[in-house]
């Protein structure tokens, strides 16, 4: 199981409705003053870069990014470091498995909505095997017999149905997102079947599992995020790009869609060093939706 699977569904576990209205109002007020200025059409390079970034709320997003980074530095990273040092490997694995199993019903629903019957079968098999033989999901029995984990969410389902990604959004304390993915996250909060299971302490279990998943994910990315941050010219821009690439990969279920890559050999001859610099921007646009 990968880190994406662990992270998936965190929003659905933490996005408590009572806080939404107040937060939305605050975000709206900040957004009004936090819009990026669109460069004039005469400045072709800057204008094209602005359109390509698809981040009209960039000043506001950068503010939330810094805020989140600071909170990470103060709280989450220290906790994750302690967790990384003290938590035995098998316990971490069990925690990830449990969390992943909790999100499987939602994944199953999206598999069906996307018409992905093979993956729906896998999700159902995983849910049945891991919830029973796997002791409430603590052991990933399904993976042992060759049925690996995967994750789906409403944002991905919307993408499959052709809904555009929309502008980039950095959600404070939650991370990179887009209008489509964030809307899907809210829908998932209400649609998650686990939220309707009539058992005592349901909300508490979801909250603890979600919090543990966040810490576990952060512990698993301590080194790599530190390295990306250290070697980045612009950490914010890098995370935005990585988020988008990752989402594209998730929507395509881990595959590379070669048909979406531009046909370089048709556009110009790459033997000609100088000419490459004067080519049409279609290649650039083709790579970045």
């Amino acid at each position, binding site marked *: 199981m*990968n*880190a994406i699977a662990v*992270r998936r569904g*965190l*929003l659905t576990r933490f996005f408590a409705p009572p806080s939404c209205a107040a937060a939305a109002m605050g975000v709206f007020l900040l957004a009004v003053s936090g819009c990026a200025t669109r460069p004039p059409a005469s400045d*072709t*390079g*800057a204008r094209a*870069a602005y359109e*390509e*970034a698809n981040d009209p709320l960039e000043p506001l997003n950068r503010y939330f990014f810094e805020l*989140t980074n600071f909170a*990470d530095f103060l709280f*989450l990273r220290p906790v994750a470091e302690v967790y990384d040092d003290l938590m035995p490997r098998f316990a971490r694995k069990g925690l990830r498995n449990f969390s992943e199993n909790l999100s499987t019903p939602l994944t199953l629903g999206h598999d069906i909505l996307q018409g992905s019957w*093979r993956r*729906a*079968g*896998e999700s*159902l*098999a995983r849910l*049945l*095997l891991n919830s029973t033989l796997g002791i409430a999901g603590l052991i990933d029995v399904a993976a042992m017999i060759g*049925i690996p984990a995967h994750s789906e969410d409403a944002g991905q389902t919307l993408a499959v149905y052709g809904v555009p990604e929309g502008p980039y959004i*950095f*959600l404070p*304390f*939650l*991370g*990179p997102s887009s209008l489509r*993915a*964030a809307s*899907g996250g809210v829908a998932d909060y209400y649609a998650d079947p686990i939220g309707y299971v009539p058992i005592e302490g349901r909300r508490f279990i979801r909250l603890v599992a979600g919090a543990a998943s*966040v810490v576990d*994910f*952060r512990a698993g*990315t301590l080194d790599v995020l*530190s390295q990306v941050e*250290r*070697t980045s*010219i*612009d950490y914010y*821009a*890098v*995370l935005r*790009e990585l988020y988008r*690439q*990752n989402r594209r990969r998730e929507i395509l279920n881990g595959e590379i869609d*070669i048909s979406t*890559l531009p*046909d*370089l*050999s*048709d556009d110009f*001859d*790459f033997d000609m060093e*100088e000419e*490459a*610099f*004067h080519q049409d921007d279609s290649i*650039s646009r083709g790579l970045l939706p």
Partner: protein
Amino acid sequence: MTRLLAASLALALLAGSPAAAESDQEAESFIRSLAEKILRLREDKAGEAREKVLMELLVKNISLSRVSRFILGPYARDMDKETRKAYKELLPEFVSKVYVRRLLTYEGEVSLEVTKSVRKGRRGREAIVYSMATVENFDEPIQIQWWLLRDREGSYKLFDINLNGFWAAQWQRAEFVSQLRKSNGDFAQLMATMRAQIGGAAAPSPPGVSAPPPAAPAAPAAPSAAQP
């Protein structure tokens, strides 16, 4: 319960295999050969000799004109000839020290297996080669795809590389374009930053940071980690 499980497993097996696309054996050989040369460098050479050979390998095997233009995004057209010359001279060193050196300095065992290839482009002058790298101390192998271009003489050059789902040139482009946006298209500032990164990459890394290649984990993401 048993029936339900059997039905779900049957459903899982229903997927048909996609039609096989045309493979490119020459492209696969190119990648095997390139990977072997780079990995052999880890054993055979050290210090400056290794840097020199690595630079030669990169200049010879990467389509620098394409890559250098691509990562400047819409700003590429605004670069004058003189600046372009300096920038293109700087790029191989940047790629060498900021990216490939990490692989060379990693002390664990690394091996690469080419799994398949697909031709692309109407003229068949591009290929995507799929491979899998096994890295010591990593739980799972790293999926690597190589995007190659073939010139008129039939020689291949590398345009981009995808590590576990992340295209490196696109990643670099996001950074460069962002920097250029912030500096109103100031190429001198961009090249100063590149030089600083080259210098930074040359310095010893803190313990535990330099070891894995950058794209090894499943997905770099935001610190707070939620991804709806």
